[in-house]
């Protein structure tokens, strides 16, 4: 399924066709898909949320359908190069994925939070939405689209937004990730996915769950897209779920120059680092969680030395609590205190510290309210493992 998303030929064809022909039946058919057909198709496809936790999107949607109050379909395009590039290259698929989700759960609105630096994307999305609306593509379901620009100083949370919900626990949500939109955030239950997952929804509805399940491996179908960066160079790479990291790196080497010896930091600010000797790790949710890596954020940074990777990771570990919304006790207290244990006590009290981190970390990472706490604690515990384990 190489290039299925970010260079999706049909998407590109659609862009051309839409601008020329308002009555493109193929595209219209996608938008006209009945809401009640969406969830069964996603459940058949066993699509998992690309946020790192790997929950079934169909289950998440189903929970939302029973919620009687206000509902929003929400995503964000903030600091992630992956979100930014995917949205730029697949605006119609993104809009389609969100529109179909809104139909499926009977949402009242569709919200796209877009960072101030990505105002071009905000404008582009607004134009596309108006274009589609004018051409009657949204006739099958009335829903409000809101593209909301967020100033840099208002960003209180800089990770994958989709981590901020727990649909199993009465659709609990963390506090508003951005200042100035608190009311909008709190007055609604959000169906939050990242851009990549919404694009997957579009693909599955267009091509069917059978097609989708032809790639990937059992329990981890489909593909995963990463943004790989080395110094100033960067590129997108799409690999089937179940591939190994070494297979991914072979593809990368064809696209950008990377050093012969390197260490990878996977998952942006919430990911640990991995050495070349560990590259046989399979790309799937459980393997990544066990290794302390975050599959969701999709950012892979290539470092020449472990020292540099560790320095970056330590900075992330110390700052991780700043992203915590502070409501959930273990995330609020744990990310800060355990992070300090990892970084500050490494020299004097190493082994004892390691035991403490493992004891507290293991105990609390499974109990935090939303995905952020789980991922941040997971990263800290893995950092401790990297730090202290021989």
């Amino acid at each position: 399924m190489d290039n299925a998303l970010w260079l999706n030929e049909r998407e590109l064809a659609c862009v051309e066709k839409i601008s020329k022909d308002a009555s493109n039946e193929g595209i219209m058919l996608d938008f006209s898909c009945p809401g009640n057909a969406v969830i069964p198709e996603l459940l058949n496809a066993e699509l998992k949320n690309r946020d790192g936790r790997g929950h079934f999107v169909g289950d998440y949607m189903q929970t939302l359908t029973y919620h009687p109050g206000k509902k929003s379909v929400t995503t964000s395009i903030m600091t992630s190069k992956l979100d930014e590039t995917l949205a730029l290259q697949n605006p119609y698929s993104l809009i389609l994925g969100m529109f179909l989700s809104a139909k499926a759960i009977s949402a009242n609105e569709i919200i796209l939070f877009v960072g101030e630096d990505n105002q071009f994307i905000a404008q582009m999305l607004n134009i596309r939405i108006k274009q589609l609306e004018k051409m009657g593509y949204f006739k099958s379901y009335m829903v409000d689209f809101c593209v909301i620009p967020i100033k840099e100083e208002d960003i209180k949370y800089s990770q994958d937004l989709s981590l901020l919900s727990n649909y199993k626990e009465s659709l609990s949500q963390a506090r508003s990730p951005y200042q100035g939109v608190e009311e909008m955030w709190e007055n609604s239950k959000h169906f939050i996915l990242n851009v990549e997952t919404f694009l997957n929804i579009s693909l599955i509805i267009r091509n069917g769950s059978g097609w989708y399940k032809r790639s990937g491996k059992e329990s981890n179908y489909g593909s995963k897209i990463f943004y790989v960066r080395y110094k100033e160079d960067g590129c997108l790479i799409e690999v089937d779920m179940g591939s190994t990291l070494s297979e991914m790196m072979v593809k990368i080497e064809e696209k950008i120059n990377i050093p012969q010896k390197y260490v990878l930091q996977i998952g942006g600010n919430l990911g640990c680092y991995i050495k070349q000797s560990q590259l046989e790790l399979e790309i799937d949710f459980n393997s990544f969680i066990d290794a302390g890596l975050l599959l969701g954020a999709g950012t892979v940074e290539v470092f020449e030395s472990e020292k540099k990777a560790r320095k970056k990771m330590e900075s992330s570990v110390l700052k991780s609590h700043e992203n915590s919304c502070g409501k959930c006790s273990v995330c609020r207290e744990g990310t800060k205190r355990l992070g300090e244990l990892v970084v500050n006590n490494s020299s004097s009290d190493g082994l004892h510290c390691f035991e403490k981190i493992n004891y507290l970390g293991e105990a609390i990472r499974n109990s935090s309210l939303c995905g952020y706490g789980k991922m941040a604690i997971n990263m800290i515990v893995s950092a401790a493992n990297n730090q202290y384990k021989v």
Partner: protein
Amino acid sequence: MENINVTINKQNYTASEANTILDICQKNNIDIPTLCHHPDLRSEGNCRMCVVEVKGERDLVASCNMKASNGMIIETGSSKVLKSRKATLELLIANHPNDCLTCDRTSGECKLQDLCYQYDVTRSEQILDTLEQPKMMDLSSPSIERDLSKCIVCGKCIRVCRETQDIGVYQYQERGFKTVVSTKGHEPLIDTNCINCGQCVKVCPVGALIEKQEIRKVIDALRDPEVHLVVQTAPAVKHTIGELFGMAPGEDVSGKLNSALKKLGVDKVFSTDLAADVTIMEEGMEFIQRIEGKGKMPMFTSCSPGWIKYVENEFPQFLDNISTCKSPQQMLGALSKSFYAQKNHVDPHKIFNLSIMPCTAKKYEAQRKEMAVNEIRDVDAVLTTRELARLIKLEKIPFKQLRDETYDDFLGEHTGAARIFGTSGGVMEAALRSVAWTLTDGVLEDIDYEKVRGLENVKEADLEIAGMKLKIAVVNGTAAARRLLEKIESGEKEYHFVEVMGCPGGCINGGGAPLQDSMATVKKRMEGIYRMDKNAELRRSHENPLVNQIYETYLGEPGGVKAHKLLHTH
């Protein structure tokens, strides 16, 4: 709702599919610890203490927030669960002042301390160093003290203030580790729209929110031989304070309470109930006058100081609709420093009026500018039910074993009508009993007005008295009051008389009542009050011989000049 079957700790249970795992466990006496959960509030799952293991789930789940489903297999005490709970406590106490010796929440009132004992979280084996706690005190409010350093960010005060009371004084502030529950812009409480109801104090699981402490002031007065200490006890206190000594909710412990107060060394024990009967005389007269066109309609009751503050803050356009009567607390204060002082040749300046109330807002009310006559304060100190119980324990008085004693003469006699002031609907019912009797010259003898009873937030009734059709409403909790006021303002609803209590359920659920209760406990308190009323010899306020004597020998007519000066705010 259909029934489901679940397995908890290898035992099978049948429950409704609407239940959370916590609901089912609590119904079946399976202990699950909680810090942020309250049965009357929406669950948020913040504290993570109630986590349990559900088969098939990778992570632990918060039982307060997770709906049970058919076939679910749950473990509430596995090693994974216990380890997680202990770790959560370790994290919380490592960021807590741990000044338990001097904290107000002692003797089982601090849930954090209880759980640390239960889960064997000890200082000696503490895993993390305790952080230095800067004191973050807010003592600005006349009713509530805040110590942010003790706050564990459970969020219950936010929910009760926003959702139950519709005020929203508190909110989460800052992010991450610095997160605190504070007021908007960290304003002192006195500068916010807080109505002093103390519902936040009631739900706080630790000592971060407590009532304004006045015990020391009272002890000083008790020890001063120059002071003539007069105490009054509110109706609801008599049916709630027993809980703090292991007695059943709703049990009338007036006799033991009188005895305990005398053992503490007070000079006279009076009953606020007497003033409640006087209130009915005054408020009833005012209502009749308003019906006759002398004043704005509908008339609102004025007994609840939280409610008065709410109208001042949010709906000042309705201020003239509120009865000008002082509350029973202030009336009794004024009468004891005038009527009682005069008849017993006591210098009113030497009288220290202590009031025992189920309410934190009464502390604020006692300090209001208009609550004085000739610059003599009506009431000098207000203790909540909890504070008095603490004082009794401090003095080692064996409350449960005490013999019943009566009130002192002059301001002690009361009726069943006065006692029901303690519950939502009580003021209205007491007023109706006397107004109906007065307007029909004793022909209409209705005593029990069932339509205004109960804990529902809004109760309405249409009545016909002496050919007059009256529309009345009874509201409790300011969230419900807001909805009603908006309807009155828009013309959607019209009433003649409206009783409003600031706290949900009325005074039996006041901010000064015993802690960690729920509406289930409140219901038992209410039942106790109605039992007392039913068995009372006198059930109408105007039948109280002492009330009649006060009017005949001192006040003159209800609503007269002297009564107005002493017993009304303006």
